[in-house]
């Protein structure tokens, strides 16, 4: 279906990434926001607090991040497309209930505007060190979807996509912004409502009395009911059967949990999004995402000026990880150079998927700023000599 024109601020704007993500959410039909202020994400919440009362949305500032994420989940079951926005310390606090969202198969979106960590770290400065946490931060096995925009425009676009994927796969989706993208102000073009494709919620059409909350078909995603529709269904964060009833058995666990992973893994190609440039014949492929991707491009230009053959792989989705493509490329190149504002996170994934077929090098940065292109260049040069 198409976006509701009422919420779509069609036109050209000069917006920061935080606000662009907020506009993306509104365009995608988000009408419930619960959040707790935290730098550098707060602009999103502020923007929404202003916009929502005029588009029929509910904005509530909760007492903390735990309350925020839980209210977001509750609202999803009440029928809202819902969202919260936070940063490092807040996302860590949300981890338990992100697990709940995954377990209940609740469509919802969490934006994490990454700052320098660990702990309180550098609240007003950039980091990209919550990437592995996004995948592994809650206890137990689950899979996550996460997008990492490189500009305010993409913050808008990928937030829309995040909502759509969360509906399609009934799963929490994380938008991994970083402080740079979140606070960077650029031109953002918001299209007409009818140019924005919106994924409808997978509402069940079963007759009352015949609905099974966790029965699923080929695509592994069950249809959803909402409170108040008359189904009188039950859901629980405990291991549960088709009926949504707790079933404390190994057999039920084996039935349930692998599917939670598989519904993402099997559909990875639909979810994954990346930009690949000039990898054909490249010696080195630079892999990056978010703000680091932009800085990388500059380093790549510099390297090309020096005559190096450098390709570029920019992850728009960091999770699921494009394992297959990495493995293929690994066979064709001398090395990957991973550029990220952390001391090695996606780097490990690349290294794993490259499986020794090529070198994997890291151009690290502890946070608080972006890479100096010269430093990336050095690693590219090293990578060009690999093997």
């Amino acid at each position, binding site marked *: 279906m198409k976006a509701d024109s009422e919420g779509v601020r069609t036109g*050209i*704007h*000069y917006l920061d990434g935080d606000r662009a993500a907020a506009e993306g959410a509104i365009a995608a039909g988000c009408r419930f926001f619960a959040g707790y202020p935290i730098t550098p994400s707060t602009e999103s919440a502020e923007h929404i607090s202003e916009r929502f009362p005029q588009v029929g949305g509910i904005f509530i500032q909760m007492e903390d991040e735990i309350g925020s994420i839980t209210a977001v989940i509750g609202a999803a079951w009440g029928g809202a497309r819902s969202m919260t926005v936070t940063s490092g310390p807040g996302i860590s606090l949300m981890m338990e209930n992100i697990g709940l969202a995954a377990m209940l198969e609740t469509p919802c979106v969490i934006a994490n505007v990454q700052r320098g960590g660990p702990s309180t770290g550098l*609240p*007003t*400065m950039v980091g990209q060190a919550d990437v592995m946490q996004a995948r592994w931060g809650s206890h137990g096995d689950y899979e996550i979807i996460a997008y990492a925009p490189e500009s305010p425009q993409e913050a808008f676009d990928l937030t829309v996509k995040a909502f759509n994927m969360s509906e399609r796969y009934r799963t929490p989706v994380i938008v991994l912004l970083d402080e*740079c993208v979140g*606070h*960077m*102000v*650029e*031109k953002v073009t918001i299209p007409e409502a009818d140019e924005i494709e919106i994924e409808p919620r997978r509402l069940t059409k079963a007759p009352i009395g015949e609905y099974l909350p966790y029965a699923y078909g080929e695509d592994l995603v069950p249809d959803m009911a909402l409170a108040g529709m008359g189904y009188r269904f039950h859901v629980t964060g405990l291991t549960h059967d088709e009926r949504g009833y707790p079933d404390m058995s190994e057999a039920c666990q084996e039935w349930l949990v692998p599917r939670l992973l598989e519904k993402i893994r099997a559909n990875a190609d639909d979810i994954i999004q990346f930009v690949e440039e000039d990898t054909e014949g490249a010696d080195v492929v630079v892999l990056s995402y978010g*703000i680091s991707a*932009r*800085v990388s*491009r*500059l380093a790549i*230009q510099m390297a090309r000026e020096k005559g190096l053959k450098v390709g570029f792989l920019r992850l728009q989705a960091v999770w699921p990880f494009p394992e297959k493509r990495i493995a293929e490329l690994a066979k064709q190149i001398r090395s990957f150079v991973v550029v990220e504002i952390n001391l090695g996170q996606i780097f490990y994934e690349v290294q794993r998927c490259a499986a020794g077929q090529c070198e994997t090098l890291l151009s690290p940065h502890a946070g608080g700023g*972006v890479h100096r*292109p010269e430093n990336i260049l050095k690693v590219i040069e090293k990578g060009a000599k690999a093997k």
Partner: protein
Amino acid sequence: MKQEIRITGFGGQGIILAGVIVGKAASIYAEKNATMTQSYGPEARGSSCSTQVIIDEQDILYPYIRESDVLVALSQEGYAKFVGELKPGGTLIYDEDLVNLGEAKKDLKLFPIQAQRIAETDLGRRIVTNIVMLGYFTAASEAVPKEAMIEAIKTSVPKGTIELNLQAFERGYDEHAQRQGKK
């Protein structure tokens, strides 16, 4: 041509808004690309803060200043911190009541103004210091067309204050001509 602009001052001077206006003017009303960013810490409150605007016809990859073309300084601290990043022959625009140049680099194009004093005295509202400065900047740097700046101001300041802000802008803009005239 790429332009790297830094505006600096202390918290409460409206530095960030100034950056937004410049960026918006360039990108929306002058059809270039413009990326505006800001550096701020908790110290922003009453302490040094700054904004960067990169303007370019091409895609802007690296969104931060590597060597600035223009520095607009509204505080001593900001001046001290960022004057070094001005490229040889770069443009330094500063409030002479607030900034003491000391031994400035020789080859800069210097544009002093008393923006805060003008805002306080001529316009009666210290709060428009930043816009006075923007007017002066527009005239002095020629980085962004005046019309684009005016449009950007109109869509960026609170509704009720547009008139005052445009007045402040013009006052700053004119100051340039006056000062040039005096020379």
